[in-house]
């Protein structure tokens, strides 16, 4: 009953999205305006349908309805309710259902919000979004039916994916990432609509920038949460492995970030229209490639689901989307070129352009490294893998250059920078950066990369703080406000700029944490009998005893656990374990991580002998790792600050006066 309801809602969703796509196109081509309204309602209906589908799946999981194949494969009678709920995205079919919920949610939100505006643009936006969503419903109708039944009905299911069970972060990382991925369809839809209607104007840029920034925020948080999950769960002491699927999330992030920056130049100076629309298209296509890599099983990774017939469908979707969008772009090329206002060599514009070149370079490097194994396998049949050292070598210099630009770019004036402005703005931060770096050398830091990043970060941070102080002082003097009020008003009246500074600040914190933690981490592998002690990085580690027993929450899981006490900068005891899940081929590590603001003590159990109680442990002392997650949170706060709608009061009249001509050009003709 419940599964049939779920299946029916998928079919209804397919019907509604197909209808919406057709009706929007008819409305756009001058059909009855009521078509537009009914198509919009159909999109909202598809969101409701996806919601009912997800609810039906969650109920089936919670009631252990093993008649549903997905439930039998991802649930067991012993599965706790919380894990049951998040199993919605534990495997292929369920995650597509969840995906459809988010994608239709974005579509409904955008179409509802702009229901009375941009009458030329919105039908095409709606048609594009409905088509994309129809694809996901079609996948669930044919090759990936989440409600497929199985017979005979098993008495017990095989239980959820072991990696999913092992850490609550699985409740957070996939939804954030999916929100980012699915949201990137919105700027893509605006891009397609603008190319069709030839309306790539400032108004368009403003909307698309906003609607890119929102999914960008989710994508960023999803990537950081994924890194954190990997660090807490996988037990190798690191957080980023340049795994193909990690790269797949990074790629659209890079192009979206490039877009957010280039849109600022385009908005301010005109031009760059081919470039900005190409970035929007690339971002969306890369999200599809990312999904394809995860869902099709053509690359091996902790993320990939089993091989499935869904792969060819996604491949077809990527090729259709790319062909259609590129075709549109090429068709409109003659209308789009030229018309930017000129600017000096050293200016904010040129910093932004260099930023885009670097982001694109990163995108190509990561894409090349990710696809190379496929290319080699296709041409010579050999299996190769492109490892972290290659990615580090290629990308670190570009990241460092971006870090430098991040400080210098926003401090440069639009137009042309004079020598005296540059001296005035950069001399002091440079001096402080040199002093801090020298101080760090004095304290014993010798690693060149870490020192460079630290110095650069201080320089860049100094420029930003200097700007805020300067602005606050000027405002306090000019308007006779106290400094706190002046600072608050300064930043909230220009949320985009200062929110951007917040994001940059978070990135700086992350960069320093990454550089120092990778430069100064220490690790060693030790074999200890019960009662033996070892030292690492100022910690005394003692192996107390080895325990092998079933997990109290699920007796089918056998835990091999080393109980360890430690003393040093932090004191206490910890358990580090290997868990043997019945449906997992390899034992799953459950590393113990003791976090402080200064450093993490990280202990993984590698091997053990139950007869003697002897264990082999991998010990890490990782400095400052927690600051990577804190930096990620600062990025998120900065982004939300930038997205938050500006207060309307007083500004409205000014804005209306400014926008009147632009708005007329959108609505006119």
């Amino acid at each position, binding site marked *: 009953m419940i599964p049939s309801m779920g299946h029916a809602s998928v079919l209804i969703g397919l019907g509604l999205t197909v209808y919406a796509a057709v009706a929007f196109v008819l409305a756009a081509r001058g059909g009855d305006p009521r078509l537009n309204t009914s198509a919009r309602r159909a999109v909202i209906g598809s969101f409701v349908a996806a919601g009912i589908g997800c609810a039906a799946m969650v109920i089936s999981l919670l009631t252990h309805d093993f008649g549903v194949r997905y439930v039998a494969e991802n649930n067991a009678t012993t599965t706790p309710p919380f894990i049951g709920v998040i199993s919605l995205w534990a495997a292929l079919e369920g995650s597509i259902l969840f995906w459809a919920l988010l994608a239709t949610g974005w579509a409904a939100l955008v179409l509802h919000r702009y229901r009375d505006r941009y009458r030329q643009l919105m039908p095409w936006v709606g048609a594009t979004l409905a088509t994309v969503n129809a694809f996901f419903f079609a996948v669930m109708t044919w090759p990936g039916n989440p409600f497929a039944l199985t017979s005979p009905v098993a008495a017990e299911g095989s239980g959820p994916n072991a990696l999913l069970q092992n850490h609550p972060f699985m409740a957070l990382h996939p939804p954030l990432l999916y929100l980012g991925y699915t949201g990137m369809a919105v700027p893509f839809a605006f891009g397609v609509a603008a190319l069709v209607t030839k309306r790539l104007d400032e108004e368009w840029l403003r909307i698309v920038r906003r609607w890119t920034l929102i999914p960008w925020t989710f994508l960023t948080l999803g990537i950081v949460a994924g890194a954190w999950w990997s660090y807490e769960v996988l037990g190798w002491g690191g957080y980023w492995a340049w795994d193909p699927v990690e790269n797949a999330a990074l790629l659209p992030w890079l192009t979206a970030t490039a877009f957010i920056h280039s849109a600022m130049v385009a908005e301010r100076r005109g031009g760059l229209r081919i470039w900005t629309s190409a970035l929007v298209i690339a971002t969306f296509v890369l999200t599809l*490639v990312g999904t394809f890599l995860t869902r099709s099983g053509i690359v091996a990774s902790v993320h990939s689901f089993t091989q499935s017939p869904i*792969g060819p469908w996604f491949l077809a979707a990527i*090729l259709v989307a*790319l062909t259609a969008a*590129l075709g549109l772009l090429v068709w409109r090329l003659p209308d789009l070129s030229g018309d930017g206002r000129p600017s000096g060599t050293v200016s904010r514009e040129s910093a932004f352009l260099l930023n885009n070149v670097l982001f694109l370079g990163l995108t190509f490097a990561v894409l090349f490294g990710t696809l190379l194994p*496929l290319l080699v396998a296709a041409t010579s049949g050999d299996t190769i893998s492109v490892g972290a050292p290659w990615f580090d070598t290629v990308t670190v210099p570009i990241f460092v250059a971006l870090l430098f630009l991040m400080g210098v770019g926003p401090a440069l004036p639009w137009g042309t920078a004079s020598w005296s402005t540059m001296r005035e703005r950069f001399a002091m931060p440079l001096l402080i950066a040199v002093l801090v770096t020298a101080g760090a050398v004095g304290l014993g830091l010798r690693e060149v990369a870490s020192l460079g990043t630290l110095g650069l970060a201080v320089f860049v941070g100094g420029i930003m703080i200097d700007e805020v102080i300067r602005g606050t002082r000027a405002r306090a003097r000019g308007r006779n406000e106290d400094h706190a009020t002046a600072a608050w008003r300064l930043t909230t009246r220009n949320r985009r700029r200062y929110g951007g500074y917040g994001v940059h600040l978070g990135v700086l914190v992350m960069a320093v944490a990454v550089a120092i933690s990778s430069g100064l981490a220490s690790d060693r592998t030790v074999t200890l009998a019960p009662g033996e002690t070892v030292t690492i990085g100022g910690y005394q580690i003692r192996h107390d005893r080895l325990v092998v027993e079933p997990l109290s929450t699920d007796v089918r899981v056998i835990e091999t656990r080393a109980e360890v006490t430690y003393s040093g900068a932090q004191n206490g005891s910890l358990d580090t374990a290997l868990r043997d899940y019945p449906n997992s*081929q390899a034992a799953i590590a459950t590393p113990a991580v003791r976090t402080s603001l200064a450093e993490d003590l990280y202990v993984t159990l590698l091997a053990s002998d139950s007869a003697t109680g002897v264990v082999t442990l991998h010990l890490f002392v990782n400095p400052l790792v927690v600051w990577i997650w804190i930096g990620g949170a600062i990025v998120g706060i900065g982004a939300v600050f930038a997205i938050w709608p500006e207060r309307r009061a007083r500004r409205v009249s000014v804005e209306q006066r400014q926008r009147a001509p632009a708005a007329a050009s959108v609505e006119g003709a």
Partner: protein
Amino acid sequence: MHHLRWLLVPLLVIPLGWLLLTGFARDPREVASPLVGQQAPAWTYETLDGDTLSTDELAGRPYVVNFWASWCIPACVDEHPVLSSAYQRGGDELMIVGVLYQDTPADAESFLARYGDAGYPHLIDATGRLAIDFGVTGPPETFFVDADGIVQAKQFGPLTDALMADHLARILPSAAR
């Protein structure tokens, strides 16, 4: 000249499509087995029925070694009828040996009771020794050994009737498919 810009579309789309398409031809998890072409490991094990079976008793006959588990859903369930019918059709010419992979005899018996027991023996590999000897990474995996005791083929993942026929052709003297 202006029309040349249209070349951009196929120039980008075709290579990307080709590259991703070739990915379907292989399974990235599949590890080429060094056992193929080599002598199969020798073994003696207790079976689910309580008998003892060893490679000596199979000498001179082609046989199939199938690693499976009751918890391996759906792959082991899917391939189960393929093995059963091949065993019934193979008659005296073909032996099939199941091996329990990280599984308990009780669970395996209830699996066979539920999904049908064709009657071929299942070895209780309690220590996982046999799985290590064959280099099994996860069930189901199936090895095809000819009458001379040489491993001729390995199936990674569930068998289908067509795959079964292909692999059997390498080890059976006549076409007993």
